[in-house]
């Protein structure tokens, strides 16, 4: 078998090596997608659930097209903050991966898992520091499939299935208390899922090509809603000369999601029963584009120059109309558009050099520009329904101008970086990695920050004849502190003299000390290979996040409310254990398992002085305790009532193959996480109850304090505090390869049918439907961060490769 065609083969091989070295970062875990247990749900993150020690994918919502939360050794002050999300790279270039606030559609649905060759998980500091402030919380590098040698290959994959809710108890639904009758009508079994992907590829001396298209539709379990995505893609490499080559990658996606009023939002309904949603509209439409172009030139003496330009663009729009029968006589309409773009340009020089037979060096020096440009425009309005006329007519007649609010916001951010990585290899035993990166950000007056790292990896196999690898690393990254504060901010105070004049003043003064949050990370790990059967990896890490930007409230004679300062320190440490068993591997039978578990602890290590007069005052009660603590008031004192972060989490995957049949399943689990649910009944204006809680029907003695309308103080009672531990059969599949047919038909390489299920069984004592349904760990009164019930889905599929 010829792996690489001879003409230009050497060049191609070298090209692959050098492209891989563009960022010169090797992954810690590398998951080949073709051998993974995939998911029926859209969103690439779902296939990673339970597969990587320390990567927590939380299936918080059953709403189709929603992104599961991703966390890879990430921590921030705010548990709802997307900044804890790992950096997502496509072929090494960053993409806009967090869902927009407008549509909530998950950008990780923009491509099919069938397009992906492998996913590299990067979490050790000596690999991560090369990304600087872009990747304080790990990185996932998604490497797309490329054309394989041969003139043409065609592969098609399709599956179809249904969603359903097992033993749905409506009273366990978080939304139930808001709208008891309507909730029953909202959910329905039988929402279809279907997915089709077609890939065409080939490779030769000219380079390689791969193109295709994919369609995914998921109606979910909320009637009348659904998510759809279509994309076209191209991944091509062209050898311009034997030394000079170009790489083009393009993926363009149209995604849509239709929402339903009683299904998904506005939990604060005044009307207890919602009537017909005949005229209700919630249309979400996204256009996602990921495009990159790379040029690589091979010089002599092992030097390669690469330059990759990329753009990641997302246009989201949402059009919404709520008729008067839902709003007690008012109608509401809004339209919003959010355009996000990320342009990067990364140029580097790579030098592979052998000092001697024993000592080799792989050095990369590069520069990167990153330009983020986000623009939001929205209009919304509300008006009362006049007597007579239908709801529909009122849409046509439009808004009362005085009740229309328009907003346009534009944020631009620039990052300029230089980096160098030096990888020294001594014999086959020792690797020493050095990283230095400097990031200059438009967010700060003092632009530059420096991130160095050092990592040592030693294989004891040769010197001590024991199958153990050890590694240790130390280094620094950072988190960009948003928004820009260093130039001070003016605020429009109000209108004067019949609206002819605008009065403005200082909201806060310039803060020249603004800077990134510093993240210092220490890693240590050991991998033991027990024969060819078992690999045990134990990794320890310790991260310290310091210098958060916060507001310092000033004594009120200052005339402004606050200034900005930096300070505070959080710690996150953990042990990740992964056990890979390759128990049996024979021609007819194979059995592999992966068990991973991560034990994490986080802690508020230091707080600014006089914490009560800062925007971090809420951390006062958790000094020395986890920042993820659930803190509530009891009487007149704050008390920790739980921890929203699990003590441990992980997954277990088992794969069996006997002749043509394969069977696999993935369990995910977490334990030791607490969930506090706010009460729907025990919510009071503090003054009205004379600042005395609990009152008669409070379920627990604990309450949260919120600021309500017109600066009123609200006491929000807590109904329950529960243990959110669970074990879930996240995915399972059985597949059959028709090898006899593929042997008979020469052009046919593989034919497979499969049955696959998602979210098949959850064991938990949690009283709600899904123990992961709350992003923050506390279920709010308005259910702002609480998801809809997670459906089970079962699909039948076929895969054909020519």
């Amino acid at each position, binding site marked *: 078998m010829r792996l690489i065609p001879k003409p230009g083969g050497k060049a191609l091989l070298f090209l692959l090596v050098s492209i891989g070295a563009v960022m010169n970062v090797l992954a810690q875990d590398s998951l080949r997608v073709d051998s993974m247990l995939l998911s029926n749900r859209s969103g690439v993150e779902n296939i990673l659930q339970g597969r990587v020690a320390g990567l927590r994918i939380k299936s918080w919502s059953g709403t189709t097209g929603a992104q599961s939360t991703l966390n890879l050794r990430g921590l921030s002050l705010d548990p709802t903050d997307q900044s804890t999300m790992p950096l997502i790279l496509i072929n090494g270039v960053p993409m806009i991966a967090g869902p927009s606030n407008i549509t909530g559609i998950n950008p990780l649905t923009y491509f099919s898992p069938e397009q992906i060759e492998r996913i590299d998980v990067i979490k050790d500091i000596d690999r991560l520091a090369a990304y600087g402030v872009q990747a304080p919380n790990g990185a996932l590098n998604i490497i797309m499939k490329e054309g394989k040698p041969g003139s043409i290959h065609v592969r098609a994959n399709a599956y179809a299935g249904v969603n359903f809710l097992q033993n749905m108890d409506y009273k366990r639904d978080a939304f139930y208390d808001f709208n008891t009758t309507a909730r029953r009508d909202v959910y329905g079994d039988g929402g279809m899922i279907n997915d089709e992907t077609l890939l065409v590829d080939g490779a030769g001396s000219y380079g390689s090509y791969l193109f295709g298209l994919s369609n995914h539709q998921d109606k979910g379990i909320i009637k009348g809603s659904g998510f759809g995505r279509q994309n076209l893609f191209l991944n091509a490499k062209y050898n311009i000369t034997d030394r000079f080559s170009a790489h083009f990658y393009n993926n363009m996606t149209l995604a849509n999601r239709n929402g339903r009023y009683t299904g998904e939002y506005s939990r604060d309904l005044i009307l207890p029963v919602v009537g017909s949603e005949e005229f209700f509209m919630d249309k979400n439409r996204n256009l996602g584009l990921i495009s990159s172009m790379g040029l690589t030139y091979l010089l002599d003496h092992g030097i390669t120059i690469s330059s990759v330009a990329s753009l990641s663009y997302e246009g989201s729009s949402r059009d919404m109309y709520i008729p008067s029968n839902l709003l007690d006589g008012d109608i509401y309409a809004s339209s919003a558009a959010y355009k996000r773009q990320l342009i990067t340009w990364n140029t580097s*020089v790579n030098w592979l050099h052998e000092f001697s037979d024993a000592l080799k060096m792989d050095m990369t020096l590069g520069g990167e520009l990153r330009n983020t440009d986000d623009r939001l425009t929205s209009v919304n309005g509300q008006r009362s329904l006049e007597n007579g006329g239908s709801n529909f007519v009122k849409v046509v007649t439009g808004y009362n101008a005085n009740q229309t609010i328009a907003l346009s916001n534009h944020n631009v951010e620039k990052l300029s970086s230089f980096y160098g990585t030096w990888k020294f290899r001594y014999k086959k035993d020792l690797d020493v990695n050095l990283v230095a990166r400097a990031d200059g950000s438009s967010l700060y007056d003092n632009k530059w920050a420096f991130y160095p790292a050092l990592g040592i990896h030693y294989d004891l196999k040769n010197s001590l004849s024991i199958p153990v690898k050890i590694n240790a690393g130390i280094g620094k990254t950072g988190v960009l502190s948003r928004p820009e504060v260093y130039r001070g901010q003016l605020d429009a105070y109000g209108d004067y003299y019949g609206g002819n004049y605008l009065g403005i003043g200082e909201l806060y003064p310039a803060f020249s000390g603004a800077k990134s949050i510093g993240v210092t990370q220490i890693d240590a790990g050991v991998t033991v290979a027990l024969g060819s059967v078992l690999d045990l990896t134990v990794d320890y890490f310790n991260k310290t996040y310091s210098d958060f930007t916060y507001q310092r409230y000033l004594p009120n004679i200052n005339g402004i409310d606050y200034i900005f300062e930096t300070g505070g320190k959080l710690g996150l440490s953990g042990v990740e254990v992964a056990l890979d068993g390759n128990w049996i591997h024979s021609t007819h039978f194979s059995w592999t398992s992966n068990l991973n578990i991560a034990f994490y602890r986080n802690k508020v290590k230091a707080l600014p002085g006089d914490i009560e007069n800062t925007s971090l005052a809420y951390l006062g009660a958790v000094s020395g305790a986890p920042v993820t603590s659930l803190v509530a008031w009891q009487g007149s004192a704050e008390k920790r009532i739980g921890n929203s972060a699990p003590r441990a989490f992980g997954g277990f995957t088992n794969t069996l193959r006997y002749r043509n049949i394969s069977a696999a399943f993935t369990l995910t689990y977490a334990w030791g996480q607490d969930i506090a649910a706010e009460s729907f009944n025990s919510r009071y204006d503090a003054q009205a109850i004379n600042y005395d809680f609990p009152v008669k029907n409070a379920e627990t003695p604990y309450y949260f304090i919120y600021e309500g309308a017109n600066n009123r103080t609200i006491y929000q009672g807590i109904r329950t505090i529960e243990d959110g531990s669970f074990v879930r059969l996240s995915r399972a599949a059985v597949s059959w390869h028709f090898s006899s047919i593929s042997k008979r038909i020469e052009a046919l390489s593989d034919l497979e049918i499969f049955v696959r299920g998602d979210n098949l069984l959850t064991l938990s004592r949690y009283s709600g439907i899904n123990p992961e349904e709350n992003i923050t760990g506390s279920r709010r009164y308005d259910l702002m961060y609480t998801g809809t019930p997670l459906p089970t889905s079962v699909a039948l599929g076929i895969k054909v490769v020519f």
Partner: protein
Amino acid sequence: MTHWKLFITGLCKQYFVAFVRERRNGKRQILTSQVSRFTAGVILAMALLCSCRKSLTVEQENSAVEEGYYQSAPRIQQSVIGGYVDFRRALLANYAWMMYGEARAGDLKVAVAYQQQVSSQKLTAPDENLVQLSDWGYFYDVIKDANDALDIIDNAAEGVLSSYQHNVYRGEALALKSMAYFYLARIWGPVSSAEKNNFGAHLTRDEVVKQAIVYATEAQKLVPWMLLNDDGIESAALTAVRFNKTAVTSLLAQEALWLGNGQNAYDILTNTFTSNIADSLSGFGLAIGADRRMEIPQAPLSPNILSMPLATFNAIYPAGDARRASMFNISGNSATLIVRDASKVDLLPVREIDLLFAEAAWRSERLEEAKEWLILAAGGATEDYSTLTEETFGNALLLERQRQLVGTGQRMFDLIRFDKVPSYIPVFTEADVTKGAAYWPLSANSIRGNGWSQNAYWAIP
């Protein structure tokens, strides 16, 4: 920064070495040679570009940053208007100007629940509106705005402001600051200074007013009788909602009288209000408008909100007083102030000038002249003020001020100034007043970080 420049230079050198090596290799094809040159050039350009600080500075189009904003007269004017808007919030939020004035003194009722507590002097009751009313932060916001505006005006590039604009804006900022301090002293007595030279210093009530007089004195010289609108034409409507010479003079006279300096007030008034300026007189009020940060009353003088019980009305304006009909509408059991211009809340009305003259003359031992001014001011009154004596003049003047200035929020301050609090607010004894009962308590926010403790009267649990 230096080491970063070195780093960048080092990087460029690295690229340059690669480039030179490439050139020395004669075997290279023309195309590849050009490409490498191009690539190296691009890298070099990029490195230089990135080293430029300016390339990392983004002009945020939707958020106004301080740097470089105040570069035109309209924008500098916005900073002055910001002071007015903050001043309006300080006085209109929670109907503060009434709560500090007539509502507390029991003359006018405001149709909000917490007014009951204010009129019954339960100012420390656990009510969030009262907490805000006892917070002086909004007044210090005005002082901050004024000081910022003064800095902005002083630092304006040459030619940005005309001399008229320079004088008016500066005068307005000083007058805003003076009036804010004056309110602080009258509401809370001793307060903090928020000036650069003595920031945070605890000042006695009289020290605060003296400081206010300095600002008003300077402002009086700068502001004109009539302000010009954007077209350069004198505008009475605009003048009525911004500080003008009439208003600042009234303010200055009030401040002097508050210190008991009748002669000084008399000099200020007589030197300023000469007979030839009668047509240019203008009051000062706050223009009604939307505050973008919070809800403030948009129709603060609406009949539904402010009223005077008929019994109180009859006691203040006895039968036969012409002001009963000219100033009030009587319906049912209450009397409502007639609002002639709903677009503003009057604070320093022109009609006060005669009363100020009367008081200044009286306090500077010119009783006869004082009586003339009072009679002139009190057109429509049933009383014969020509028979007033040194002893009776004070009460008569206080009564006329109560009648004439109703709705301007000055009543409680007058009671303090005339030392009549226990007479009109029987819940307070002389001893209570000595302890500080006439002033407002300090909110927790006003105490915190400012080194104050609750005043002796309100500190009593």
